[in-house]
Protein backbone atom coordinates (compact mmCIF):
# COMPACT_ATOMS: atom_id res chain seq x y z
CA UNK A 1 0.00 0.00 0.00
CA UNK A 2 1.81 3.08 -1.30
CA UNK A 3 0.45 6.59 -1.65
CA UNK A 4 1.55 8.17 -4.94
CA UNK A 5 1.84 11.93 -4.61
CA UNK A 6 1.70 13.92 -7.85
CA UNK A 7 3.24 17.32 -7.17
CA UNK A 8 5.18 20.34 -8.37
CA UNK A 9 7.23 22.24 -5.77
CA UNK A 10 6.08 25.56 -7.25
CA UNK A 11 2.53 24.72 -6.15
CA UNK A 12 1.73 25.81 -2.59
CA UNK A 13 -0.62 22.93 -1.72
CA UNK A 14 1.86 20.48 -3.30
CA UNK A 15 4.48 21.70 -0.85
CA UNK A 16 2.03 21.32 2.03
CA UNK A 17 1.58 17.67 1.12
CA UNK A 18 5.29 17.07 0.58
CA UNK A 19 6.05 18.43 4.05
CA UNK A 20 3.20 16.43 5.64
CA UNK A 21 4.17 13.15 3.99
CA UNK A 22 7.90 13.54 4.63
CA UNK A 23 7.19 14.42 8.27
CA UNK A 24 5.16 11.21 8.53
CA UNK A 25 7.42 9.03 6.41
CA UNK A 26 7.56 6.28 9.05
CA UNK A 27 3.77 5.99 9.04
CA UNK A 28 2.77 6.65 5.41
CA UNK A 29 4.62 4.88 2.57
CA UNK A 30 4.92 7.37 -0.29
CA UNK A 31 6.08 7.49 -3.88
CA UNK A 32 6.71 11.09 -4.97
CA UNK A 33 5.85 11.67 -8.64
CA UNK A 34 6.93 15.10 -9.92
CA UNK A 35 4.66 16.72 -12.54
CA UNK A 36 6.49 19.61 -14.22
CA UNK A 37 3.90 22.38 -14.71
CA UNK A 38 6.37 24.53 -16.62
CA UNK A 39 6.66 21.70 -19.20
CA UNK A 40 2.88 21.23 -19.39
CA UNK A 41 3.04 17.72 -17.95
CA UNK A 42 -0.22 18.30 -16.09
CA UNK A 43 -1.99 18.55 -19.45
CA UNK A 44 -1.11 15.01 -20.57
CA UNK A 45 -3.76 12.33 -21.14
CA UNK A 46 -2.06 10.11 -18.56
CA UNK A 47 -2.31 12.74 -15.88
CA UNK A 48 -5.97 13.45 -16.73
CA UNK A 49 -6.61 9.85 -15.64
CA UNK A 50 -5.18 10.75 -12.24
CA UNK A 51 -6.91 14.15 -11.94
CA UNK A 52 -9.51 15.20 -14.53
CA UNK A 53 -9.06 18.80 -13.34
CA UNK A 54 -5.44 18.58 -14.58
CA UNK A 55 -3.95 20.14 -11.47
CA UNK A 56 -1.49 19.33 -8.73
CA UNK A 57 -1.44 18.07 -6.10
CA UNK A 58 -3.26 14.77 -6.48
CA UNK A 59 -2.82 11.37 -4.87
CA UNK A 60 -3.37 7.76 -5.88
CA UNK A 61 -3.66 5.40 -2.92
CA UNK A 62 -3.87 1.86 -4.25
CA UNK A 63 -6.06 2.99 -7.12
CA UNK A 64 -8.14 5.52 -5.15
CA UNK A 65 -7.46 8.88 -6.79
CA UNK A 66 -8.11 12.14 -5.03
CA UNK A 67 -7.53 15.85 -5.75
CA UNK A 68 -7.89 19.00 -3.57
CA UNK A 69 -5.26 19.35 -0.85
CA UNK A 70 -7.81 19.98 1.91
CA UNK A 71 -9.60 16.73 1.15
CA UNK A 72 -6.32 14.86 0.70
CA UNK A 73 -5.00 16.00 4.08
CA UNK A 74 -8.20 14.90 5.84
CA UNK A 75 -8.20 11.57 4.01
CA UNK A 76 -4.57 10.84 4.94
CA UNK A 77 -5.14 11.76 8.59
CA UNK A 78 -7.97 9.25 8.97
CA UNK A 79 -6.41 6.53 6.83
CA UNK A 80 -3.06 6.43 8.60
CA UNK A 81 -2.30 6.59 12.36
CA UNK A 82 -0.64 10.02 12.37
CA UNK A 83 -0.38 12.02 15.60
CA UNK A 84 -3.67 13.57 16.71
CA UNK A 85 -2.52 17.22 16.57
CA UNK A 86 -2.41 17.13 12.76
CA UNK A 87 -6.22 16.82 12.59
CA UNK A 88 -7.60 16.62 16.14
CA UNK A 89 -10.45 14.29 17.05
CA UNK A 90 -11.75 16.83 19.59
CA UNK A 91 -14.80 18.27 17.81
CA UNK A 92 -14.26 21.96 18.51
CA UNK A 93 -10.52 21.80 17.79
CA UNK A 94 -11.26 19.98 14.54
CA UNK A 95 -13.89 22.58 13.61
CA UNK A 96 -11.26 25.34 13.95
CA UNK A 97 -8.90 23.50 11.59
CA UNK A 98 -11.78 23.04 9.12
CA UNK A 99 -12.65 26.72 9.50
CA UNK A 100 -9.17 27.88 8.43
CA UNK A 101 -8.94 25.34 5.60
CA UNK A 102 -12.27 26.62 4.20
CA UNK A 103 -11.51 30.35 4.70
CA UNK A 104 -8.10 30.24 3.03
CA UNK A 105 -9.28 29.37 -0.53
CA UNK A 106 -10.89 32.75 -1.22
CA UNK A 107 -8.49 34.74 0.90
CA UNK A 108 -4.78 34.00 1.34
CA UNK A 109 -4.73 31.40 -1.44
CA UNK A 110 -6.68 33.44 -3.99
CA UNK A 111 -4.84 36.77 -3.60
CA UNK A 112 -1.38 35.29 -2.99
CA UNK A 113 -1.75 33.17 -6.14
CA UNK A 114 -3.18 36.02 -8.22
CA UNK A 115 -0.35 38.36 -7.22
CA UNK A 116 2.23 35.70 -8.12
CA UNK A 117 0.52 34.85 -11.41
CA UNK A 118 0.17 38.49 -12.48
CA UNK A 119 3.80 39.37 -11.74
CA UNK A 120 5.66 36.13 -12.55
CA UNK A 121 3.60 33.56 -14.49
CA UNK A 122 1.97 35.88 -17.04
CA UNK A 123 5.31 37.34 -18.26
CA UNK A 124 6.66 33.77 -18.52
CA UNK A 125 3.78 33.07 -20.91
CA UNK A 126 4.50 36.18 -22.95
CA UNK A 127 1.82 38.39 -21.41
CA UNK A 128 2.65 41.87 -20.08
CA UNK A 129 2.36 42.61 -16.35
CA UNK A 130 -1.04 44.24 -15.79
CA UNK A 131 -0.03 46.94 -13.30
CA UNK A 132 -3.63 47.77 -12.38
CA UNK A 133 -4.36 44.14 -11.53
CA UNK A 134 -1.09 43.91 -9.60
CA UNK A 135 -2.07 46.92 -7.51
CA UNK A 136 -5.53 45.49 -6.80
CA UNK A 137 -4.24 42.05 -5.86
CA UNK A 138 -1.50 43.63 -3.75
CA UNK A 139 -4.08 45.61 -1.79
CA UNK A 140 -6.32 42.57 -1.35
CA UNK A 141 -3.35 40.48 -0.24
CA UNK A 142 -2.44 43.19 2.28
CA UNK A 143 -5.99 43.13 3.67
CA UNK A 144 -5.91 39.35 4.03
CA UNK A 145 -2.53 39.46 5.78
CA UNK A 146 -4.08 41.97 8.18
CA UNK A 147 -6.85 39.48 8.93
CA UNK A 148 -4.29 36.75 9.62
CA UNK A 149 -2.20 39.06 11.82
CA UNK A 150 -5.12 40.47 13.79
CA UNK A 151 -7.70 37.68 13.88
CA UNK A 152 -6.28 34.23 13.13
CA UNK A 153 -3.07 34.80 15.11
CA UNK A 154 -4.62 37.04 17.75
CA UNK A 155 -4.71 34.51 20.59
CA UNK A 156 -3.11 31.34 19.27
CA UNK A 157 0.46 30.33 18.41
CA UNK A 158 -0.79 28.29 15.45
CA UNK A 159 -3.33 29.20 12.83
CA UNK A 160 -6.14 27.03 14.17
CA UNK A 161 -5.27 26.65 17.83
CA UNK A 162 -2.61 25.81 20.37
CA UNK A 163 -0.97 23.00 18.37
CA UNK A 164 0.49 22.51 14.90
CA UNK A 165 -2.11 21.12 12.46
CA UNK A 166 -2.55 20.51 8.73
CA UNK A 167 -3.98 24.05 8.52
CA UNK A 168 -0.50 25.41 9.29
CA UNK A 169 0.95 23.52 6.32
CA UNK A 170 -1.49 25.28 3.99
CA UNK A 171 -0.99 28.67 5.66
CA UNK A 172 2.79 28.75 5.63
CA UNK A 173 3.23 27.39 2.09
CA UNK A 174 0.84 30.09 0.86
CA UNK A 175 2.72 32.76 2.85
CA UNK A 176 5.96 31.77 1.09
CA UNK A 177 4.53 32.30 -2.41
CA UNK A 178 4.28 36.11 -2.85
CA UNK A 179 7.95 36.51 -1.86
CA UNK A 180 8.87 35.01 -5.24
CA UNK A 181 7.16 38.04 -6.80
CA UNK A 182 8.99 40.45 -4.52
CA UNK A 183 6.11 40.96 -2.07
CA UNK A 184 7.23 41.00 1.57
CA UNK A 185 4.41 39.37 3.57
CA UNK A 186 6.29 39.95 6.86
CA UNK A 187 6.57 43.74 6.54
CA UNK A 188 4.22 45.26 9.09
CA UNK A 189 3.12 41.81 10.26
CA UNK A 190 5.36 40.77 13.18
CA UNK A 191 2.96 38.04 14.36
CA UNK A 192 3.05 36.42 10.91
CA UNK A 193 6.87 36.54 10.89
CA UNK A 194 7.08 34.89 14.33
CA UNK A 195 4.41 32.37 13.33
CA UNK A 196 6.19 31.19 10.18
CA UNK A 197 9.47 30.83 12.10
CA UNK A 198 7.77 28.74 14.76
CA UNK A 199 6.12 26.43 12.22
CA UNK A 200 9.34 26.07 10.21
CA UNK A 201 11.28 25.10 13.33
CA UNK A 202 8.88 22.22 13.95
CA UNK A 203 9.07 20.90 10.40
CA UNK A 204 12.76 20.88 9.54
CA UNK A 205 14.44 19.64 7.44
CA UNK A 206 11.32 18.95 5.39
CA UNK A 207 10.17 22.59 5.26
CA UNK A 208 13.46 23.87 3.84
CA UNK A 209 13.77 20.87 1.48
CA UNK A 210 10.33 21.53 0.00
CA UNK A 211 11.17 25.23 -0.44
CA UNK A 212 14.62 24.95 -2.08
CA UNK A 213 13.52 26.50 -5.41
CA UNK A 214 11.14 28.91 -3.72
CA UNK A 215 13.98 30.34 -1.61
CA UNK A 216 16.13 30.77 -4.74
CA UNK A 217 13.37 32.71 -6.50
CA UNK A 218 12.63 34.77 -3.38
CA UNK A 219 16.30 35.81 -3.20
CA UNK A 220 16.27 36.70 -6.91
CA UNK A 221 13.12 38.81 -6.50
CA UNK A 222 14.75 40.84 -3.73
CA UNK A 223 17.65 41.95 -5.95
Amino acid at each position, binding site marked *: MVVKLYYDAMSQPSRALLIFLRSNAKIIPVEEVPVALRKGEHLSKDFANVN*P*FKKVPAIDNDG*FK*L*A*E*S*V*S*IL*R*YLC*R*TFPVADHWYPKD*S*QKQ*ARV*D*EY*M*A*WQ*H*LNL*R*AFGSMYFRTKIINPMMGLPVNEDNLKTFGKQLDDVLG*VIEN*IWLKENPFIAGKELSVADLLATTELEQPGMAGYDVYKGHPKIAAYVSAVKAKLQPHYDDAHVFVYKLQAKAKL
Partner: protein
Amino acid sequence: MSLKLYVHPLSQPARALLLFCRANSIPFQEHVVDLIKGEHKREEYKKVNPFQKVPVISHDGFLLTESVAILRYLSRTFSVPDHWYPKESELQARIDAYMAWQHLNLRSYGSMYFQTGYVIPRTFKQPVNEQKLSKFEKGLETALDEITDIWLKDGPFIGGGKQISVADLLAVTEMEQPGMAGYDVKTYNKRITEYMNTVREILQPHYDQIHSECHKIQEKALKKA
Protein backbone atom coordinates in the same frame (compact mmCIF):
# COMPACT_ATOMS: atom_id res chain seq x y z
CA MET B 1 -32.26 26.65 22.36
CA SER B 2 -28.60 25.75 22.12
CA LEU B 3 -28.10 26.43 18.37
CA LYS B 4 -28.36 29.88 16.79
CA LEU B 5 -27.90 30.57 13.08
CA TYR B 6 -26.97 34.02 11.81
CA VAL B 7 -28.19 34.10 8.22
CA HIS B 8 -29.47 36.14 5.29
CA PRO B 9 -31.85 34.91 2.54
CA LEU B 10 -29.56 36.13 -0.22
CA SER B 11 -26.48 34.32 1.16
CA GLN B 12 -25.93 31.00 -0.59
CA PRO B 13 -24.08 29.26 2.27
CA ALA B 14 -26.62 30.57 4.78
CA ARG B 15 -29.37 28.91 2.76
CA ALA B 16 -27.38 25.67 2.71
CA LEU B 17 -27.25 25.70 6.53
CA LEU B 18 -30.97 26.47 6.82
CA LEU B 19 -31.76 23.58 4.45
CA PHE B 20 -29.59 21.19 6.47
CA CYS B 21 -31.15 22.11 9.82
CA ARG B 22 -34.73 22.10 8.55
CA ALA B 23 -34.34 18.83 6.61
CA ASN B 24 -32.99 17.20 9.78
CA SER B 25 -35.46 18.86 12.16
CA ILE B 26 -32.62 20.34 14.19
CA PRO B 27 -34.09 23.01 16.46
CA PHE B 28 -32.42 26.40 16.11
CA GLN B 29 -32.95 30.10 16.62
CA GLU B 30 -32.69 32.11 13.41
CA HIS B 31 -31.24 35.61 13.36
CA VAL B 32 -31.45 37.43 10.03
CA VAL B 33 -28.48 39.79 9.84
CA ASP B 34 -29.50 43.06 8.20
CA LEU B 35 -26.72 43.35 5.62
CA ILE B 36 -28.30 46.31 3.85
CA LYS B 37 -28.33 48.33 7.07
CA GLY B 38 -24.73 47.26 7.74
CA GLU B 39 -25.43 45.19 10.85
CA HIS B 40 -22.46 42.97 9.98
CA LYS B 41 -20.08 45.94 10.23
CA ARG B 42 -21.07 46.87 13.80
CA GLU B 43 -19.01 46.17 16.91
CA GLU B 44 -21.70 43.92 18.38
CA TYR B 45 -21.64 41.62 15.37
CA LYS B 46 -17.83 41.56 15.29
CA LYS B 47 -18.01 39.78 18.66
CA VAL B 48 -20.04 37.01 17.01
CA ASN B 49 -18.05 36.94 13.78
CA PRO B 50 -14.79 38.90 13.55
CA PHE B 51 -14.81 38.30 9.78
CA GLN B 52 -18.07 40.28 9.63
CA LYS B 53 -19.88 37.90 7.31
CA VAL B 54 -22.78 35.46 7.20
CA PRO B 55 -23.36 32.71 7.99
CA VAL B 56 -22.02 32.05 11.48
CA ILE B 57 -23.38 29.73 14.16
CA SER B 58 -23.36 29.79 17.93
CA HIS B 59 -23.76 26.40 19.62
CA ASP B 60 -23.80 26.48 23.42
CA GLY B 61 -21.47 29.46 23.16
CA PHE B 62 -19.15 27.89 20.56
CA LEU B 63 -18.92 30.30 17.62
CA LEU B 64 -18.05 28.93 14.19
CA THR B 65 -17.81 30.49 10.70
CA GLU B 66 -17.38 28.98 7.22
CA SER B 67 -20.31 26.91 5.96
CA VAL B 68 -18.12 23.93 5.03
CA ALA B 69 -16.74 23.72 8.58
CA ILE B 70 -20.23 24.31 10.03
CA LEU B 71 -21.86 21.55 7.96
CA ARG B 72 -19.23 19.05 9.09
CA TYR B 73 -19.58 20.15 12.70
CA LEU B 74 -23.39 19.89 12.66
CA SER B 75 -23.27 16.48 10.95
CA ARG B 76 -21.25 14.98 13.76
CA THR B 77 -22.86 16.92 16.63
CA PHE B 78 -26.48 16.07 15.84
CA SER B 79 -27.63 12.55 14.97
CA VAL B 80 -28.36 12.97 11.29
CA PRO B 81 -28.62 10.10 8.78
CA ASP B 82 -25.22 8.97 7.48
CA HIS B 83 -25.80 10.04 3.86
CA TRP B 84 -25.48 13.74 4.76
CA TYR B 85 -21.77 13.25 5.50
CA PRO B 86 -20.97 9.58 4.92
CA LYS B 87 -18.51 7.68 7.09
CA GLU B 88 -17.39 5.61 4.09
CA SER B 89 -13.95 7.07 3.57
CA GLU B 90 -13.68 7.34 -0.22
CA LEU B 91 -17.14 8.86 -0.68
CA GLN B 92 -16.46 11.28 2.18
CA ALA B 93 -13.19 12.27 0.50
CA ARG B 94 -14.98 13.02 -2.79
CA ILE B 95 -17.58 15.12 -0.96
CA ASP B 96 -14.75 16.95 0.83
CA ALA B 97 -13.05 17.48 -2.53
CA TYR B 98 -16.20 19.12 -3.94
CA MET B 99 -16.60 21.32 -0.88
CA ALA B 100 -12.98 22.49 -1.31
CA TRP B 101 -13.18 22.90 -5.12
CA GLN B 102 -16.41 24.91 -5.10
CA HIS B 103 -14.99 28.00 -3.33
CA LEU B 104 -12.85 29.07 -6.30
CA ASN B 105 -15.19 27.78 -8.98
CA LEU B 106 -18.99 27.69 -8.77
CA ARG B 107 -19.06 29.90 -5.67
CA SER B 108 -16.68 32.63 -6.78
CA TYR B 109 -18.02 33.00 -10.36
CA GLY B 110 -21.66 32.65 -9.30
CA SER B 111 -21.17 35.23 -6.54
CA MET B 112 -19.31 37.67 -8.77
CA TYR B 113 -22.01 37.33 -11.45
CA PHE B 114 -24.62 38.17 -8.80
CA GLN B 115 -22.57 41.06 -7.38
CA THR B 116 -21.89 42.53 -10.82
CA GLY B 117 -25.38 42.01 -12.23
CA TYR B 118 -27.52 42.75 -9.18
CA VAL B 119 -25.83 44.17 -6.07
CA ILE B 120 -23.38 46.73 -7.48
CA PRO B 121 -25.77 48.42 -9.96
CA ARG B 122 -28.38 48.78 -7.20
CA THR B 123 -26.02 49.87 -4.44
CA PHE B 124 -24.12 52.43 -6.51
CA LYS B 125 -26.97 53.31 -8.92
CA GLN B 126 -24.83 52.64 -11.97
CA PRO B 127 -25.25 50.57 -15.13
CA VAL B 128 -24.12 46.94 -15.22
CA ASN B 129 -20.46 46.46 -16.21
CA GLU B 130 -21.19 44.15 -19.15
CA GLN B 131 -17.54 43.33 -19.78
CA LYS B 132 -17.05 42.03 -16.25
CA LEU B 133 -20.41 40.24 -16.35
CA SER B 134 -19.38 38.43 -19.49
CA LYS B 135 -16.10 37.36 -17.90
CA PHE B 136 -17.87 35.93 -14.85
CA GLU B 137 -20.44 34.23 -17.07
CA LYS B 138 -17.62 32.37 -18.83
CA GLY B 139 -16.17 31.22 -15.51
CA LEU B 140 -19.61 30.18 -14.29
CA GLU B 141 -20.21 28.08 -17.42
CA THR B 142 -16.83 26.38 -17.09
CA ALA B 143 -17.74 25.45 -13.52
CA LEU B 144 -21.15 24.13 -14.63
CA ASP B 145 -19.43 22.05 -17.33
CA GLU B 146 -17.07 20.59 -14.74
CA ILE B 147 -19.99 19.78 -12.46
CA THR B 148 -21.79 18.07 -15.34
CA ASP B 149 -18.75 16.17 -16.65
CA ILE B 150 -16.88 15.36 -13.45
CA TRP B 151 -18.78 15.91 -10.19
CA LEU B 152 -22.07 14.39 -11.42
CA LYS B 153 -20.46 11.78 -13.67
CA ASP B 154 -20.58 8.76 -11.37
CA GLY B 155 -23.98 9.09 -9.71
CA PRO B 156 -27.11 11.15 -9.13
CA PHE B 157 -25.43 13.36 -6.51
CA ILE B 158 -22.15 15.29 -6.19
CA GLY B 159 -19.13 13.02 -5.81
CA GLY B 160 -20.97 9.95 -7.07
CA GLY B 161 -23.15 9.45 -3.99
CA LYS B 162 -26.45 7.59 -4.34
CA GLN B 163 -28.07 9.90 -1.80
CA ILE B 164 -28.03 13.62 -1.10
CA SER B 165 -25.17 15.02 1.01
CA VAL B 166 -24.02 18.37 2.40
CA ALA B 167 -22.13 18.94 -0.86
CA ASP B 168 -25.42 19.05 -2.75
CA LEU B 169 -26.77 21.72 -0.40
CA LEU B 170 -23.81 23.96 -1.21
CA ALA B 171 -24.10 23.21 -4.94
CA VAL B 172 -27.80 23.98 -5.43
CA THR B 173 -27.83 27.10 -3.30
CA GLU B 174 -24.96 28.46 -5.41
CA MET B 175 -26.83 27.44 -8.58
CA GLU B 176 -29.85 29.51 -7.52
CA GLN B 177 -27.83 32.71 -7.15
CA PRO B 178 -27.06 33.94 -10.70
CA GLY B 179 -30.78 33.77 -11.57
CA MET B 180 -31.28 36.93 -9.51
CA ALA B 181 -29.03 38.74 -11.98
CA GLY B 182 -30.79 37.23 -14.98
CA TYR B 183 -28.75 34.06 -15.66
CA ASP B 184 -30.93 30.98 -15.27
CA VAL B 185 -28.57 28.17 -14.24
CA LYS B 186 -31.49 25.73 -14.12
CA THR B 187 -31.72 25.71 -17.90
CA TYR B 188 -27.97 25.43 -18.58
CA ASN B 189 -28.14 21.80 -19.71
CA LYS B 190 -30.29 18.69 -19.24
CA ARG B 191 -28.15 17.24 -16.48
CA ILE B 192 -28.17 20.43 -14.39
CA THR B 193 -31.96 20.81 -14.83
CA GLU B 194 -32.50 17.22 -13.74
CA TYR B 195 -30.06 17.57 -10.81
CA MET B 196 -31.57 20.78 -9.46
CA ASN B 197 -35.11 19.38 -9.75
CA THR B 198 -34.13 16.17 -7.96
CA VAL B 199 -32.48 17.98 -5.05
CA ARG B 200 -35.32 20.47 -4.78
CA GLU B 201 -37.92 17.67 -4.59
CA ILE B 202 -36.04 15.92 -1.79
CA LEU B 203 -35.86 19.14 0.23
CA GLN B 204 -39.44 20.36 -0.07
CA PRO B 205 -41.19 22.20 1.47
CA HIS B 206 -38.05 23.72 2.99
CA TYR B 207 -36.36 24.41 -0.35
CA ASP B 208 -39.05 26.76 -1.68
CA GLN B 209 -39.56 28.40 1.73
CA ILE B 210 -35.84 29.13 2.13
CA HIS B 211 -35.58 30.36 -1.49
CA SER B 212 -38.73 32.48 -1.47
CA GLU B 213 -36.85 35.81 -1.52
CA CYS B 214 -34.49 34.49 -4.21
CA HIS B 215 -37.29 33.19 -6.38
CA LYS B 216 -39.15 36.53 -6.21
CA ILE B 217 -36.06 38.40 -7.42
CA GLN B 218 -35.31 35.74 -10.06
CA GLU B 219 -38.81 36.03 -11.51
CA LYS B 220 -38.35 39.77 -12.06
CA ALA B 221 -34.81 39.38 -13.44
CA LEU B 222 -35.58 36.51 -15.78
CA LYS B 223 -38.61 38.33 -17.21
CA LYS B 224 -36.30 41.17 -18.22
CA ALA B 225 -33.60 38.91 -19.70
